[in-house]
C-alpha cells in the first residue's frame, strides 16, 4: 500500500547499497529529483537498469555509485555521447563500469516479462548481429509448434523501481499520461518502488475509462516533488528543457566541470532545486 513520505525518507527507506534499481522514463517523466537524492545519500555499488540511460545515469556513474548498468541505448538524445559513462567504460574512471547490453526490443520485452512475473521473455530479434556474442544473457527457445528459433532475454526484476508520474490521489493511486514508456512495467516488475509526482489531487475526476493508473496497493512510496522530472518533462505541467540537454554536453565533457556542477547543483541542492527551472520554463506544455 502506497505511503506518502518525504523524498529523503523514501530513498533511505527503499534503496540500499548494492541493490538493483530501475529509474525509468522514456524521455518523458525521468525521475531526476529522486535520482539526485540517491546521489546525495551516496548509495553505492548499484546496478542500474534503464532502456535509455541519459544525463541522470551519466551523473550516477560519474559520481562513482554504479557497479553495473543494464541498458539498450546510452546517449544524450539528439546531442551526443554521455561523457561520464564513456569515461567509466573507456578509462575506468571513477571506477570500472560493467555493462549488460541489449536492444530496445529486448529490454521492453524484459520489463513486460518482469511485470508478468515470467522468468524470461520471447521475441523475434537479434538476427545477424553481434550483441549475442558478447552478452551471454541473450539466448533462445524453439517454438514448440513451428520450430522457429526465437530470442530470449531474462525478465527484469529490480529491487527498486523509481519513476516520476503526473498525479496521485489521496488514496495513493498514481496516474501517468502521455509517453508512458515502460514505467508501469518497471513498478510492477520491482520488489518495491518510489514514485515522485507533480501533484496530489483529491480525486482524479473525469478521465478515460482506460487511464494508465497504478493502484495504491502496487506502489511503495509516493513523494510530492513538483518539477521532479526537470530537465525531462511532465505532460501538461512543463516542457522538456532541450536547452539543458544541449548544455550538458560541455558540463560533462571534463571531470572537473562535471564535479563542480554536481556539487553546486546536486550535492548542495535539495529536492526542490529544479522546480523553479521547470516552472520558469513553463510554456504551453
Amino acid at each position, binding site marked *: 500500500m502506497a505511503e506518502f513520505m518525504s523524498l529523503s525518507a523514501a530513498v533511505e527507506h527503499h534503496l540500499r547499497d548494492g541493490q538493483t534499481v530501475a529509474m525509468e522514463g522514456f524521455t518523458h517523466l525521468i525521475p531526476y529529483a529522486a535520482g539526485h537524492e540517491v546521489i546525495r545519500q551516496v548509495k553505492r555499488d548499484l546496478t542500474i537498469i534503464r532502456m535509455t540511460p541519459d544525463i541522470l545515469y551519466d551523473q550516477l556513474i560519474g559520481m562513482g555509485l554504479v557497479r553495473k548498468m543494464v541498458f539498450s*541505448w546510452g546517449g544524450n538524445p539528439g546531442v551526443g555521447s554521455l561523457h561520464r559513462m564513456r569515461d567509466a567504460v573507456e578509462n575506468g574512471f571513477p571506477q570500472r563500469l560493467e555493462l549488460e547490453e541489449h536492444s530496445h526490443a529486448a529490454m521492453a520485452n524484459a520489463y513486460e516479462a518482469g511485470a508478468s512475473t515470467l522468468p524470461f521473455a520471447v521475441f523475434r530479434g537479434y538476427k545477424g548481429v553481434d550483441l549475442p556474442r558478447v552478452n551471454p544473457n541473450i539466448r533462445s527457445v524453439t517454438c514448440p509448434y513451428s520450430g522457429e528459433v526465437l530470442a530470449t532475454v531474462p525478465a527484469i526484476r529490480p529491487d527498486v523501481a523509481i519513476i516520476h508520474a503526473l498525479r496521485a490521489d489521496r488514496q495513493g493511486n498514481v496516474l501517468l499520461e502521455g509517453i508512458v514508456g515502460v514505467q508501469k512495467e518497471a513498478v510492477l516488475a520491482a520488489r518495491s518502488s518510489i514514485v515522485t509526482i507533480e501533484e496530489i489531487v483529491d480525486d482524479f475526476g473525469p478521465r478515460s475509462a482506460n487511464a494508465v493508473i497504478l493502484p495504491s496497493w502496487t506502489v511503495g512510496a509516493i513523494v510530492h516533488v513538483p518539477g521532479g522530472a526537470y530537465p525531462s518533462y511532465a505532460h501538461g505541467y512543463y516542457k522538456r528543457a532541450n536547452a539543458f540537454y544541449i548544455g550538458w554536453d560541455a558540463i560533462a565533457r571534463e571531470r572537473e566541470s562535471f564535479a563542480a556542477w554536481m556539487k553546486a547543483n546536486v550535492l548542495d541542492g535539495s529536492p526542490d532545486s529544479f522546480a523553479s527551472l521547470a516552472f520558469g520554463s513553463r510554456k504551453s506544455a
Partner: protein
Amino acid sequence: MTYSATEIMTIVASRFLTNSDICFVGIGAPSAACNLARLTHAPGITLIYESGTLGTRPDVLPLSIGDGELCDTALTTVSVPEMFRYWLQGGRITLGFLGGAQIDRFGNLNTTVVGDYGNPKVRLPGGGGAPEIASSCGEVFIIMAMNPRAFMAKLPFITSMGHGAGKGSREALGLSTKGPTRLITDLCLFEPDPETSELIVTAIHPGVTREMIQAQCGWPVRYADQVGLTPAPTDSELAVLRDLQARTKQAHAA
C-alpha cells in the same frame, strides 16, 4: 539556391517517401526527411517514433525520441513494450530509418563500439531499436554522410544487420523483410545490386565526382550500369526544410 551536404541528403531521402508509408522514424536526419515529406508531397504519411507515438505530426523536429510535441500531435501513444511487440515486431511498419557511426558495403551498421567490445577505444551509444528495426520493417533506408572512417571495409561490431555477407544472408536467417533498399548519403545514392546485395551507386548528387565518392569510402565503390544524376534540391524543398529547421532551433533554445 545553394545548399549544404546535409540538406541534399535530407531532401533526397524525403523524395522517396509516399503517403502510404508507415515509417519508424529515428532522431536527426530521418526525422527531418520524414517531416519534410509530410510538409511537402506526402501529407498522409504515417510517422511513428519508438517512444510510442503513432501517427504523429510535430510542428518542430523533436530533439529526443520522446519530446512532448510528438505525443501532443499523435493519433495516440502506446506503451514502449506495446510499440516493440504489436507495432514493430508485428510487421506493421513499411519503412524504417537507420543511421550509424559505421557502415559496410552490405549495409550492416555499427553504433555500438569502436575497438574491442570489452576494452573499447570509443564507446558509442549502442543499438537502441536498431537491431529489430533492421529485421522487422518492410524495408530500411539508411542516411549517413560519407567519410572513410565511417564507410568501412570491415566493421568491428555489427549492431544491426543489412545484407549480412551478401545476397541470401537475410533469407538464411529466416527474414522475409527487404533490409536496406537505399543508402542516402551527402554525395550520392546507393542501392543494393540485385545480384549480390552489395550497395552500389545508382545516382550521384550535382557537382559530385566518382573520385570524391571514393575518397570518402573505405571500400572500392561500385556503380550501377546506369548511374543517374540526383535532381538538385528545389527552392521550395529548401524553403520548407529551412523553415522547419529554424522553427526547431528556436524551440529547442528556449
